[in-house]
């Protein structure tokens, strides 16, 4: 049957269209409208053209926030991907130990993001926090509220603790999907552990690892709640990432026009990365087929 004759199927996507319209398309249209106007209050606005875009694009603090954001996402991937694969390789393959490991690993993923920030504020406090007090008692001055490096270390530790389990779970699922015959063949050939990892496990995990890479990049690029709770973007601007800077403009200064222009640029950056990762994912898929 010609797909255009079967019109009933269109009714099934109507609810999604309505929900997406209200949750995404209409707000996005409003943001576009705001981005070309100076909003003074309800009904009081002035058309300014692309002035806000120019202002935002030439804003030095936005450039700094963007580099900071890219550095953060890059570091997150550099640490979490190898660590996640390593932990997945070391995990028990079957029995109660495998189930217990999976449950324990999944725990950080279940905690709400703002609670994660609060946990780590207390954990790293120099006076009462277990980590902060231990490090300080070892003679190393550690204070994430005063020192930019300490703030970054705390954020990275928190991020790695929170999200590495996702990489582990994905990598573990990929590893478990490899048929035993591959390992038996490798054993007969006398392959080393490294050769097994390099030529069997890694290529077989390529699909799930690409998904892990994509998810981790996107999440870390959009990070807001954890650094907002933990450092509030400080000390100074040391941990002011794009989303935190955006909220400062929109809610802190109530500059809705520049904030809308900033949001659209942020959206375009994310859209570009999404598309690049999607293409990479597609390439991986077709690569496996061939």
């Amino acid at each position, binding site marked *: 049957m010609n797909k*255009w004759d079967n019109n009933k199927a269109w009714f099934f996507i109507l609810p999604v269209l309505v929900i997406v319209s209200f949750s995404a398309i*209409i707000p996005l*249209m*409003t943001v*576009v*409208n*705001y981005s*070309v*106007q100076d*909003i003074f209050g*309800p*009904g009081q*606005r002035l*058309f300014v*053209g*692309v002035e806000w*875009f*120019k202002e935002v*694009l*030439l804003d030095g603090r936005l450039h700094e926030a963007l580099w900071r954001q890219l550095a953060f996402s890059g570091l997150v991937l550099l640490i979490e991907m190898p660590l996640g694969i390593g932990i997945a390789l070391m995990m028990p393959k079957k029995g109660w130990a495998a189930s217990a490991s999976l449950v324990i690993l999944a725990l950080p993923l279940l905690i709400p993001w703002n609670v994660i920030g609060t946990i780590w504020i207390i954990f790293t406090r120099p006076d009462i926090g277990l980590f902060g007090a231990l490090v300080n008692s070892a003679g190393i001055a550690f204070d994430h509220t005063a020192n930019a490096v300490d703030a970054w270390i705390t954020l990275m530790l928190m991020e790695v603790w929170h999200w590495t389990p996702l990489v582990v779970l994905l990598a573990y699922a990929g590893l478990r999907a490899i048929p035993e015959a591959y390992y038996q063949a490798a054993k007969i050939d006398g392959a080393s552990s490294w050769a097994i990892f390099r030529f069997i496990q890694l290529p077989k995990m390529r699909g799930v690892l690409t998904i892990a890479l994509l998810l981790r990049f996107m999440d870390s690029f959009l990070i807001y709640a954890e650094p907002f709770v933990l450092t509030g973007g400080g000390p100074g601007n040391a941990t002011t990432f794009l989303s935190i800077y955006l909220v400062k403009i929109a809610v802190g200064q109530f500059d809705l026009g520049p904030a809308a222009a900033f949001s659209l*640029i942020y959206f*375009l950056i994310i*859209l*570009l990365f999404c*598309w690049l990762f999607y*293409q990479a994912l597609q*390439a991986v898929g077709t690569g496996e087929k061939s």
Partner: protein
Amino acid sequence: MTLEWMAWTPVTAGFFCVIALILIGMTVWEVVSPCVARRGLLPLTTTRGDRLFIGLLGSAYIHLTWVGLTDLSLWIATVISICFLIVLMRWG
């Protein structure tokens, strides 16, 4: 219900009308002559919709670069974007 909170302007309304018309046009085009994915100038196999998406995203970046780097009229960037879109749709 008033739409004042959405702060519409003639320019942005025109922009969304053009986007909507493009999407309707692409749908009609697809019904009349279904697209076959192919490989052109771009280093990947693309459908008509893919090329439109790449073209629109590229156009957005062309406009942003123009606004960020020059004080010349934005219409020049629009003309460059339309040329880029046509080249991409035809040979991309």
